[in-house]
C-alpha cells in the first residue's frame, strides 16, 4: 500500500528537516563560545555556527513562505515545540567534550555536503539556489572537521581514546540520515531532494576513509536510533528550546 503523500506537506517537512537540523546544530556549536580548547577553534566554531544559522534562515524562510500561513523563519524557530521539530537526532546530542562536538560535526558534515550537492540539482529552483549557497560553506566545514578528526584520532593516546569514545557514542545516531521515510521518498521521486539511499554509499566511503586515516574503528552492531525526522526527540531538545525560545515566548508582543 503506497502512502498518499501531500506534496506541499512533504516539501514543508523536508525543508523543516534541513532547517531544523542546521538550527539545532548551529545552536549546539554556539554553546562553545568562549570555551574552546584553542583560540583558533573559538573562531572556527563561531564561524560554523554562523554559517548554520544563516542556512537556517534560508531553509525555514522558504518553508514558511511555501506554507503560506504567514510564518517566517523566526516564527518557525521560536514558536514551535519539540514535536514539531524535524531535526536529526544526531545534531541535538549534547556537546560533551570537544571530541564529541567534533565527531558529531564530522558525521553530519559527511552527510550534509553530498546532500547539498544533490539538493543543488533540485527541480525546485529555490531549493537548488539555497543548496548551492550553503554547499560552499559546508564543503569547508567538512574539510575542517575531517582534518581535525584525523589529527586527533591519530594524535596522542588520550586524544585517540576520546575520539573513539565519541565515535562509539554517536554512531547509532547516524542511521537516520540515510533511512528514507514516505516524505523522503516522495521528495526524491519528485526530483526535489536527493535519494537518501543513494547518499549512503557516498557517506560510507567518506566516513570510512577518514576514520581509517584517523586510526579509529567503526563500531560493530547495526542498531540505529530513529525518530528525529518525524518529531520524536530525545530529552535534550526540550531543554535547548527552553533556552533558545525564552525571549520570544516570554515577550510575545515584543520585536527585537
Amino acid at each position, binding site marked *: 500500500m503506497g502512502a498518499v503523500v501531500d506534496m506541499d506537506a512533504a516539501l514543508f517537512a523536508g525543508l523543516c528537516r534541513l532547517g531544523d537540523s542546521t*538550527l539545532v546544530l*548551529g*545552536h549546539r556549536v*554556539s*554553546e562553545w*563560545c*568562549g*570555551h*574552546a*580548547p*584553542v*583560540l*583558533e*577553534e*573559538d*573562531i572556527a566554531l*563561531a*564561524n560554523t*555556527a*554562523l554559517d548554520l*544559522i*544563516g542556512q*537556517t*534562515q534560508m531553509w*525555514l524562510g522558504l518553508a514558511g513562505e511555501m506554507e503560506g500561513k504567514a510564518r517566517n*523563519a*523566526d516564527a518557525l*524557530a*521560536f514558536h514551535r515545540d519539540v514535536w514539531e521539530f524535524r531535526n536529526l537526532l544526531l545534531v541535538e546530542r549534547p556537546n560533551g*567534550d*570537544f*571530541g564529541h562536538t567534533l565527531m558529531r560535526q564530522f558525521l553530519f558534515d559527511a552527510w550534509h555536503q553530498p546532500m547539498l550537492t544533490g539538493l543543488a540539482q533540485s527541480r525546485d529552483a529555490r531549493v537548488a539556489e539555497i543548496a548551492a549557497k550553503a554547499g560552499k560553506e559546508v564543503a569547508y566545514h567538512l574539510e575542517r572537521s575531517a582534518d581535525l578528526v*584525523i*589529527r*586527533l584520532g*591519530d*594524535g*596522542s593516546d*588520550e*586524544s*585517540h581514546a*576520546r575520539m573513539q569514545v565519541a565515535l562509539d557514542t554517536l554512531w547509532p545516531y547516524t542511521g537516520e540520515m540515510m533511512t528514507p521515510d514516505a516524505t523522503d521518498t516522495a521528495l526524491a521521486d519528485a526530483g526535489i531532494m536527493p535519494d537518501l539511499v543513494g547518499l549512503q554509499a557516498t557517506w560510507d566511503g567518506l566516513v570510512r576513509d577518514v576514520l581509517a586515516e584517523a586510526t579509529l574503528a567503526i563500531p560493530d552492531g547495526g542498531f540505529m536510533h530513529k525518530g528525529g525526522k518525524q518529531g520524536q526527540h530525545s530529552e535534550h531538545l526540550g531543554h535547548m528550546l527552553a*533556552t*533558545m525560545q*525564552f*525571549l*520570544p515566548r516570554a*515577550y510575545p*508582543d*515584543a*520585536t*527585537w
Partner: protein
Amino acid sequence: MYAQMVKSEATQDDPEALAAFQARIDAGEKIEPKEWMPEGYRKTLIRQIGQHAHSEIVGQLPEGNWITRAPTLERKAILLAKVQDEAGHGLYLYCAAETLGVSRDELTEALLAGKMKYSSIFNYPTLTWADIGAVGWLVDGAAIMNQVPLQRTSFGPYSRAMIRICKEESFHQRQGFDIMRKMANGTKAQRHMAQDALNRFWYPSLMMFGPSDKDSVHSAQSMAWKIKMNTNDELRQKFVDQTVPQAEYLGLTVPDPDLRWNAEKGGYDFSEPDWTEFFEVLKGNGPCNAERLAARQKAWDDGAWVRDGLMAHAAKQRSAPIAAE
C-alpha cells in the same frame, strides 16, 4: 595600579641609545620587533598588548552568555559574527605580543595565575538582552575611543593590529546601538530593560579608561613612548560627549544627576565612577571575576588533551618521512 608594576623597570639602558630611540619615536617612526628597544618599553608593551588580548578573549563570555538566547535568528547571527571578531582580535594581539618574545601560552598562564589583568568591564554580568545592546553600544564604544588613537602607536605590530581591529569595531558598536534602539522603542518591559542596562553599564564603562591621570604615575613615560596616545581623562571626556546625545536620542536617562553641558569647556561635566569599586573589581572582587576566570581555566584544562593531541599528530607527521626512508 599598573604604574607600580612599571616603575621598577626604569631601565639602566645606555642614555645615548635611549635618546636615539626617543628621537625615532618623536620623528614618528615605527619600532619593529627586531630593532633595539628599552626593556621598559618592551615590558610595558607586553603587559598592555597582553592585557588587551585577554580582554578580547574574556570579553567573549558575557556576550556568549546570550548567544543561545538571542531573540531572532538575525540577532543570533550578528552576535555570533561579533564574538567571532573578538576572538580574532585576541589572535591578532597575541601575535603582536609574540613578536616581543612572549608566547600566547605564557600569557594565558599568566592570566590564569592572576598575574595579568583583563578589562574590568567583563566582570559585570549580562542579565537581560538589553545588556547585549549596552555592551555593544557602550563597551565597544569605549573600546573604540581607546583604540582609534592606538592605530598611531609607535610599535609597528601593535599599530597594524589596531588598524585591523578598528575596522571591525564600528560594526560592533552599531549592532549594540541598534539593539538598544529596538529595546528603547519597544514594550514597557523592553524599555525597562534598556534603562536598567544603561544604569548598570554606565559607570563601569567610564572605568574602562582607567583612573584619573593624576593617579597614573607611568602615564607620562608611556605617552612619551607613544604606547599611550591620550590621557585617560581626555578619552573619558570624549566618550561622555559622544554618548550622552546618543542616550538622549534613545530616550534613556544617563544615571548621573550631576551630568551637565558645560558650554565653557565645550563638553559635559559628569560624576566620576566609584574608584573604590574599580580597584575591588581589579583585585578580583567584581560580580563575575570568579566565574570569568573559572570559565577560562576550564577551557584551558579541558582543552589540554586537544592541544596535546594536535601536537602529537604534528610530531608524527614530521617523523613520518624519515621513518619511511
